[in-house]
């Protein structure tokens, strides 16, 4: 049997052309091939280019055949601020272990360190990008992987900086284990469906850590978004899943852990929102399940602004937020059930772990602050506590059906 298989393989190899055996081409300062552009020209399909450690001053490198480009000990490609550095226009390209710096800045075209255009099955991994405009830009490219890259930008102003990782009309992509910092938007998605964003760390970006619009069926797991200008913005998308992410220290007048705008049928599970000005800001989002999230020490745990229907909040922990929930209207169509509220003052006489008195998470004071923002300075004053208490007894300004009937007595683990 073994012999037959061997024979078959041999015949197959002969038919497919032995002369096309993949080669290894080495590029270095003292080699025959001194530039990457030249090497790509001489290479044939499925070859491997090994780039030795040196500084290559090149830009507009066009990868137009299926190649594997591997850097040894992080060779530097210096674009000298002249424009785009690598453009991939072929399927099955792998880029591994390069150090790319000085991408050109332009106000008319989006220069990127690595741009993938209309290609499939690409892998970009272990790449370090510094001094960039756009980092990794995927344009109408599907079934790729962006893995374990480090992108360090030095963005100062929004108008002349670009995004760390940008996906535009790119589907079925996996973006995982990347570190993005100091860009305009850390990770940006537009019209990209079925994307998996996993275990990335997006910090200190100028605008959003993660920003996506019109991208359905995407999954976000175990990412960390910290200290971004405006946190994370999620807009106009359906059926997304966010699980196990951490949103931390997004402070400012328009900063959110997550901003949800026109998001429908999503699942937000087991995320942690810590010390944000607003944990989750919800606008026009329906049928979302919030389960097992931790809201810790935020200014506002959840801020609901108009037209949010049939959302369920269950088994979440609300710990030491200045305001747990804020509403701007008297209408409520959302369900709060079985959450733990650190501000709950009720009792549990039958000892079933559920408080015997419902908890009203919306305080009158949050309503006052919505009307006159300066009043925030009266937070935790005795006068406000007295008013809040009277509102709690007989709700006038806040939705009277908004309450958690089964508030938990102990934290959800």
């Amino acid at each position: 049997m073994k012999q037959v298989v061997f024979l078959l393989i041999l015949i197959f190899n002969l038919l497919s052309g032995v002369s096309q055996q993949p080669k290894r081409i080495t590029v270095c300062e003292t080699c025959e091939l001194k530039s990457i552009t030249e090497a790509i020209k001489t290479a044939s399909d499925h070859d491997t280019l090994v780039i030795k450690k040196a500084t290559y001053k090149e830009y507009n490198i066009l990868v137009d055949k299926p190649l594997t480009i591997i850097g040894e000990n992080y060779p530097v490609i210096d674009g000298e601020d002249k424009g785009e550095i690598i453009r991939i226009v072929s399927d099955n390209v792998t880029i591994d272990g390069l150090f790319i710096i000085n991408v050109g800045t332009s106000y008319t075209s989006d220069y990127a360190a690595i741009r993938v255009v209309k290609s499939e099955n690409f892998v970009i991994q272990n790449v370090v990008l510094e001094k960039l405009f756009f980092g990794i830009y995927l344009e109408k490219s599907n079934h790729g992987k962006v893995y374990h890259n480090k992108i360090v930008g030095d963005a100062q102003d929004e108008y002349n900086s670009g995004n760390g990782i940008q996906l535009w009309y790119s589907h079925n992509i996996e973006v995982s284990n990347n570190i993005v910092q100091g860009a305009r938007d850390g990770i940006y998605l537009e019209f990209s469906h079925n994307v998996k964003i996993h275990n990335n760390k997006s910090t200190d970006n100028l605008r959003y850590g993660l920003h996506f619009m019109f991208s359905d069926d995407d999954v976000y797991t175990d990412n960390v978004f910290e200290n971004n200008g405006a946190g994370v913005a999620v807009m106009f998308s359906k059926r997304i899943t966010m699980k196990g992410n951490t949103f931390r220290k997004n402070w400012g007048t328009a900063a959110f852990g997550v901003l949800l705008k026109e998001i429908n049928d999503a699942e937000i599970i087991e995320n942690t929102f810590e010390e944000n000005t607003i944990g989750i800001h919800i606008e026009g989002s329906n049928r979302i399940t919030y389960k097992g999230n931790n809201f810790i020490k935020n200014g506002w745990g959840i801020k609901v602004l108009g037209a949010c229907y049939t959302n369920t909040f269950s088994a979440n922990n609300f710990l030491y937020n200045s305001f747990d929930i804020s509403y701007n209207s008297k209408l409520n169509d959302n369900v709060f059930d079985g959450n733990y509220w650190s501000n709950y003052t009720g009792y549990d006489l039958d000892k079933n772990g559920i408080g015997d008195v419902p908890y009203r998470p919306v305080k009158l004071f949050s309503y006052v602050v919505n009307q006159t923002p300066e009043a925030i300075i009266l937070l935790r004053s005795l006068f406000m506590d007295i008013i809040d208490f009277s509102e709690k007894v007989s709700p006038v300004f806040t939705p009277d059906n908004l309450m958690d009937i089964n508030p938990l007595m102990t934290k959800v683990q």
Partner: protein
Amino acid sequence: MFKILKYSFYDLIRSRWSYVYFLFYLLLGFVLLFLNNDISKAIITLMNVIIILVPLISTIFGIMYFYNSKEFTELLLAQPIKRSSIFLGQYFGVAGSLTLSLVFGLGIPFVLYGLFKSDAIFDFTLLLVTGAFLTLIFTVLSFNIALSNENKIKGFGYAVLLWLFLAVIYDGLFLMSLIVFKEYPLDGFSLAATMFNPIDLSRTLILLKLDISALLGYTGAVFKKFFGTDQGLFISMFMLVLWTVLPIWRLVIISKKKDF
């Protein structure tokens, strides 16, 4: 002055009320920590207690002490002692013993529950410093009231009214004015209004630590500068010192002029 301070201080340290006050805080601290077992939550509750209760107790204690020791004061006045040292001595004796009860009463349970190992130590220190300042301020305010009113009932009434005004009514008026004038930029006004009330001032100081994320949600350059930098802490501290020093200064002036 120090002799009188020492005398007042020891007199109070030996008195029952200091112990009651001390035990009250001790009990409060233990109960809070026992119920929550979470230092940061206990600190929030404690803050509410401190900014309301400390002024109340200091005011009442101060005014009671002044009226009670009036005969002794008159006896001292007959001696060749400077008037300012008599009154300052008494004042620091009262304020000192109250502060001591507060610091030890709250300090002991928190230290036993592992304060030094938690990251809440700075918040807690701030809480104690604020509490101490509130004691100093409200004791001297009550001394001022007592000195200006011979009638005990009247003096007592004024003192309670002062507390009620600063703790509750002031914030009500403050909120009303914010709502009435909401068309105008009010961030400068609201910060200034906070400065004129020691209770609000200490509340703000604690908010700076506990609720900074909410405070930064407001759009306003003045707010942002005040809360976003160390400026807020320094200005609030400076104002608290001013709130202590100015009434003491008045106490000295009045006591020199007063005809006993």
